[in-house]
């Protein structure tokens, strides 16, 4: 599954990011590292909005499609 497939208000765990080194490291350092749990706040048009730890992060759709995740049931 990739990030853009997750519905709003659902949580997921980051599994893998298959993007260039620079972008991947950036995302890792912003808290989207392996195993991190994030909540999808908005996923309709435009960038996906995530809640990572305490902050909101907007990720372009192209990028979000490269982020492999696993849905978390609560």
């Amino acid at each position, binding site marked *: 599954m990739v990030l853009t497939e997750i519905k709003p208000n659902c949580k997921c765990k980051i599994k893998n990011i298959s*993007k260039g*080194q*620079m*972008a*991947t*490291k*950036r*995302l*890792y*350092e*912003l*808290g989207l*590292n*392996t*195993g*991190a749990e994030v909540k999808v*706040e*908005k996923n*309709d*048009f*435009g*960038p996906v*909005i995530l809640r*990572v*730890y*305490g*902050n*909101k*992060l*907007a*990720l*372009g759709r*192209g*990028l979000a499609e490269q982020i492999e995740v696993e849905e978390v049931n609560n």
Partner: protein
Amino acid sequence: MHTIALVGNPNSGKTTLFNAITGSNQHVGNWPGVTVEKKEGFFTYKDEKYTLVDLPGSYTLGAFSEDEIVARDFVLKGNPDVVINVIDATNIKRNLYLTIQLLEMGANVVLALNMIDEAKSKKINIDIKRLSERLNVPIVETSASKKIGVDELLKVTVESIGRKTKPLEISYGKYIDQEIVNIQKLLENKDFLYPKRWMAIKILENDREIISLVSSDSEIKAYIDKLREEDKIFELDIVDKRYDYINNITRELIKEPENVLTTTDKFDKVLTSYIFGVPIFALIMATVFQLTFKIGQDFLGGYVESFIGYIATLVENLLISINAPELLVSFISEGFFGGVGAVLVFVPLIVVLYFFLAILEDTGYMARAAYVMDSLMRKVGLQGKSFISMIVGFGCNVPGIMSTRTLENKKDRMIAILINPFMSCGARLPVYMVFIGAFFPKNGGIVLFLIYALGITMALIMAKVFSKTLFKGEETHFIMELPPYRLPSMNSVFRDMWEKVWEFLKRAGTVIFLVVTILWVLSMLPAGVEPYSKESLLGRIGSFLAPIFTPAGFGTWQASVSLFAGIAAKEAIVGTLGMLYSPMDLTEALRMNFTTLSAISYMVMVLLYTPCAATIATVKRETNSAKWALFMAIYTFLLGYIMAVLVYQIGSLFI
């Protein structure tokens, strides 16, 4: 004097804290060799004076950007006595990522747990005492915007001077730990100024700065090449381990309620929505320009204008009464007050525009504007974040171009730089204002909005052209933090506004004064010629150039000269016009020398043609290439010219 450094993530309230500590006792410069802004301030505690250095805000201390390198070099080589690390209490874990890196460097850290009031109202519970023990650093709760905890922070900071610290050692797992030890051994007895273990970790993190530094040593270089071959660069694993460490340390110490719908979320539902997002943004910008016009021009502008007129008459009369030489009187009244004075009249306008831009930035709305614009920007081959540099460009293109540094990829950045001058800066505003005053006194707000809209449209079209021609193929991505909405702190809004207005005033006093003086001299030569006449040197130069602009409807020598003065500084356009038509009232003079149509084509030209010298210099510095700077200067001129001609020629068919 002891030196204290201030570091923190963007949006952690670092700048607010810096202002709260130093007050007005600060100055801004540049870090040597780079274009990163250096802010330094002073504070006194118990009769002793301390220097506080504000390091660039960053999420990490890698070699990702100049900002990060500046920050970490200062921590390692600038020998600060204490490093105050500002942390957003509502987002501790992510902020601690930076802290961990500071501790790994062995810095003497004091944590300022900022925005503590917000954290409390969000019911985030933090066991500060135990967190402080586990991290082995003092922690002070602060709320910089409300000036809470600032004294306590200074007390703890001063007490921490001389505190013995040793670098934090995190276990990165058996495998990486072993490699760290191996590299450390290689680094031993080598003459590098950085801590060895830290360097070893950075090498394994694939840090290009450190790797290029140590590559001067053939033995180490060979080892790194071998690591690369064996795929033993652990960039991402190291990040993972640091977060594991943070999660372990903070476990049980931070409790936050889940799934609370914050005010920010409620606002975002509307402001970032598919249907309302873009219209609201357009409405906000239109309102900003309308208000700028109403308050800055109609209300405040009038006072300033009569004030300057009053002073001008006073000075002139004084000079005449003391029998000052005629030439001096002419210079003061026509050159100085006609030129520089014409620019100063617009200070209130600039003040109001900067005020609103600072508010948009401070409330956190700017990030949402980037968000809603992302889809549109994507269609022209850019991304939403590029839009921020465009909005900053409305204030001034120099910081606009500098703000493109936050764009991670080269294509995004180059395009954003090349289109930035189409975002009409504050210095061009006076030109529109005098023309609007003369030709569209009733519909000023709308005309102004249309001019800005044309600028944006041209920027988007050129972005599309560039992404299809000069910078093909490269993919762009959008990563941006959406900070919580906050009530703007008037203190920082006014400070921000004042810094920019001061810049404007300085330019009025230097560059514009210089341009006006040169032009004044040219208009007096050759000796004996009637000043400001077509026969003067200036008139001859202008007359030579004027035919170029005849197809655009403003082929007068005055219009040509002022356009060229505008390349030195855009404010000089109005200054020059004011001087050339002096002593006639500028509005009257424009009505006589322009038609409504040629006024429009002239404004279009001013909007689009070659940016000012400072902007061209910034392009050269930021792209590291004189070629791009030259390209920028020429293509904008051609575009402005073609558009002005089109407007005039097509318009002539209808009028």
